[in-house]
């Protein structure tokens, strides 16, 4: 039973890609033994004799002398089990018929001498698709290999490659970019700083998004992330910027919400429809004819506006400013961060501003009061519910820290962080916003120096904390670059006179100039 085996031109030396057939040493019909030289091939490096890998009878040679053949192309086919088809009277007695296409001896006729080459009679299919021997395992020479390749030879040669991709298994979701956990090397976590692990609000955003946020003056910590993999997307930033623009918050004016006493379940706690969340500004929604967009006044916006009007035109507002060298505050922040008590909490300049306000209030209690027109009384409070104005996806809210004056600094830091996180995720509750006694508005995060903040209704003072900038400053008699900020306080002139307001502001500034000494001396 004929067993045809093709022999493919191997790589005869270290990566060659083709060879020229110099001389055939056998011809179709020849019986060949194992290792018998069958052909001389010339490559780029040498002329080599190729020994036969099989014992059998040559069925066909596939290239003529002088032809150049690629490595891996079939050059000769053998029948390794010629049986009775080759030569001898035994064949004449009715030997096994040869495979289709081979000139086979008719019964009783001895086949002609071996020189005639029936090469052209080999079916094309046999040559084009070498019959892969099913008994050869994948990976061994002659066997199948993934991607439709055939393992030809050990040296491979520079393989001819194709621009075809191996098919992948369908995966449930697209490949997830792992924010790779750093490897532990000898017990230490490389690349992981303790501070990052300490409950701080870590914001995820791509570099181009961060730049955009900075350019637009958006604090990323106040945004919710809707981007892929928990990151803040470009759209999130653009939405926030639009919100600020339409709410008039690009200036120093501090919006605040109508306090709950008059409307317990007022618009404050109501979830606004999503469209108003972003201020409703959608770039594509402008009427092409008028190039205008009309947004209904309702919900948070409406309440904010009403409160603003009430406050602005009831209490006579006076605003004073002071510019302070707060290098000492930044130093204190660094110092505090290193203390064990503060290992788990976020220490920021805002924390120290809050502390300064609380200490200054203790020295000037009258600033922590309110004008009760109805009762014709000024209510001075012994407790400080310190409000912090926060920009959120739903607008500006002013939650307050209850009884902040009695908190230790670490506790104050913790509550400040919680307040900010809650506000940022839009979960501030009405109770949080009730009963504030004095407020800080941090306009510095927008890159703004100061302004004329409007009082939170029911309060008599509001402090605007501006951006901290490196500016030339006369320090110890010389002009030095120092970290400088502006503090502005608006107060209700009905109960806070100029002296009180000024002293309060001056105290706040003095504390921030030298927090360590003043806090020791004054608390």
């Amino acid at each position: 039973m004929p067993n045809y085996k093709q022999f493919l031109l191997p790589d005869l030396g270290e990566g060659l890609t083709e060879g020229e057939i110099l001389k055939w040493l056998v011809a179709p019909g020849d019986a060949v033994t194992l290792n018998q030289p069958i052909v001389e091939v010339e490559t780029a490096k040498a002329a080599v004799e190729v020994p036969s890998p099989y014992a059998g009878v040559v069925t066909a040679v596939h290239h003529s002398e002088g032809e150049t053949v690629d490595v891996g192309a079939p050059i000769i086919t053998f029948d390794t089990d010629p049986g009775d088809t080759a030569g001898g009277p035994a064949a004449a007695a009715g030997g096994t018929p040869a495979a289709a296409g081979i000139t086979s001896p008719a019964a009783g006729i001895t086949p002609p001498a071996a020189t005639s080459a029936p090469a052209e009679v080999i079916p094309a299919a046999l040559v084009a698709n070498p019959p892969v021997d099913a008994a050869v395992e994948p990976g061994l020479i002659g066997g199948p290999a993934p991607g439709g390749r055939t393992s030809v030879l050990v040296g491979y040669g520079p393989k001819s490659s194709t621009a075809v991709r191996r098919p992948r298994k369908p995966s449930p979701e697209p490949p997830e970019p792992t924010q790779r956990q750093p490897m532990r090397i000898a017990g230490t976590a490389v690349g992981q700083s303790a501070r990052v692990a300490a409950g701080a609000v870590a914001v995820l955003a791509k570099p181009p998004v961060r730049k955009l946020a900075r350019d637009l003056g958006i604090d990323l910590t106040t945004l919710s992330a809707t981007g892929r993999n928990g990151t803040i997307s470009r759209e999130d930033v653009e939405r926030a910027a639009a919100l600020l623009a339409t709410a008039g918050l690009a200036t120093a004016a501090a919006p605040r919400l109508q306090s709950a006493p008059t409307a317990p379940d007022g618009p404050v706690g109501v979830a606004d429809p999503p469209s108003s969340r972003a201020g409703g500004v959608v770039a594509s929604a402008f009427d092409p004819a008028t190039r205008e967009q009309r947004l209904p006044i309702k919900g948070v916006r409406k309440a904010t506006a009403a409160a603003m009007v009430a406050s602005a035109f009831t209490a006579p507002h006076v605003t004073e400013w002071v510019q302070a060298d707060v290098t000492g505050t930044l130093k204190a922040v660094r110092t505090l961060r290193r203390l064990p008590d503060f290992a788990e909490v976020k220490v920021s300049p805002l924390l120290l501003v809050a502390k300064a306000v609380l200490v200054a209030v203790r020295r000037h209690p009258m600033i922590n009061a309110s004008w009760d027109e109805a009762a014709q009384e000024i209510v001075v409070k012994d407790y400080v519910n310190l409000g912090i104005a926060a920009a959120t996806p739903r607008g500006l809210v002013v939650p307050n820290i209850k009884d902040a004056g009695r908190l230790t600094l670490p506790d104050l830091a913790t509550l400040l962080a919680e307040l900010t996180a809650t506000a940022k995720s839009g979960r501030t509750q009405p109770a949080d916003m009730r009963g504030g006694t004095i407020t800080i508005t941090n306009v510095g995060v927008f890159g703004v120096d100061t302004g004329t903040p409007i009082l939170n209704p029911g309060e008599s003072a509001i402090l605007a904390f501006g951006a901290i900038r490196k500016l030339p400053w006369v320090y110890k008699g010389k002009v030095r670059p120092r970290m400088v900020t502006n503090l502005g306080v608006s107060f209700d002139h009905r109960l806070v006179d100029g002296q009180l307001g000024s002293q309060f502001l001056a105290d706040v500034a003095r504390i921030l100039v030298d927090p360590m000494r003043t806090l020791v001396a004054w608390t």
Partner: protein
Amino acid sequence: MSVASSLGGQAGGGEVAGGLMGRAAPETSSVATSTTAGPELVQLLTPEGERVSHPDYALDLTAEDYRSLYRDLVLVRRVDVEATALQRQGELGIWAALLGQEAAQVGSGRALLPGDYAFPTYREHGVAYCKGVDPLKLLGLFRGVSHAGWDPHDHNFGLYSIVIGSQTLHATGYAMGIQKDGTEDAVIAYFGDGATSQGDVNEAFVFATVFNAPVVFFCQNNQWAISEPLERQTRIPLYQRARGFGFPGVRVDGNDVLAVLAVTRAALRNAREGNGPTFIEAFTYRMGAHTTSDDPTRYRLASDLETWKLKDPLERMKAYLVRSGMADAAFFAGVEVDADALAAHVRKGCIEMPDPDPLSIFDGVYAEPTALLAEERARFAAYLSSFADGPQADADSAAATAGGR
């Protein structure tokens, strides 16, 4: 079997005339002398198969010994020829044939005791055979399924060194270790004529002589470093280089298995007895190409080859065995049968060598593995199993089919 006892002690420093060399070395040598055998060639069996004697090297072997040596020569050549054929057929990526150098390798290999350590280059298949390494283990390297197929400690046969000459320093260091252990083992370092130009080899000579290390430097001068002839590496016969470093050198007919055996034994004994290194230059010829991808017709004459064919190591032994009556036709037929059987074993084993698992790329990088590498391996494993047409995919679909019943 005894070795001629003209092993005069080597005085510390100074002249090394006498001792192994038997007589003073010639003053100078021209380039011509470096490439021709010259009068200093130790020989015990002429190319015609005539047994001769040498004043410094006696060899007393039994008939069985002579037959055994011949059998080794035949088997070693047979494996080499088979491997060359396997390469031509695409079963090996490359093969470095030792054709013509059988006597140099068998003669020296048979001189080694089991405790002696051999540091080969990449052509010492004959020495490997003598040391008991299965030839199939060598083929794995040339087939590309492994970098080395054997544990060097199994037979005291080192891993093949493809970087030229580096193994001579290793051999010297190993010999220094033997010194510290105080045993009677010795080391043999193999290298070629080309290697003597490498810095590492010359440094090895320095270290070996300075520390008096028990190492035999066995140079198979097969006259060629790929296409470069001996003149490109030296102006003096190689065995005379040793003198400049301060240790004895001897040139032996590399195609004479008896002479090689005798000289190597003497040198090893010298080492064992604490007399330090010896340089043996086995003067032979690379009958084949440098490796299977080399074409020697580009740089050497066919007539050279013809000259050396007349010095064939196997032919002279066969002639001697026949003429002396120590072997008969049955013996020679038996040797051929053994050779064919060994060749068949090598062929079958080679073709059946499985491809290694891709993940084995990561095996054995370190004695103490690292976490980073483990992570890399895991990622690669996940990557490999992500393909729809891979073996893992087949396993998955097979499992799915089975589960569906």
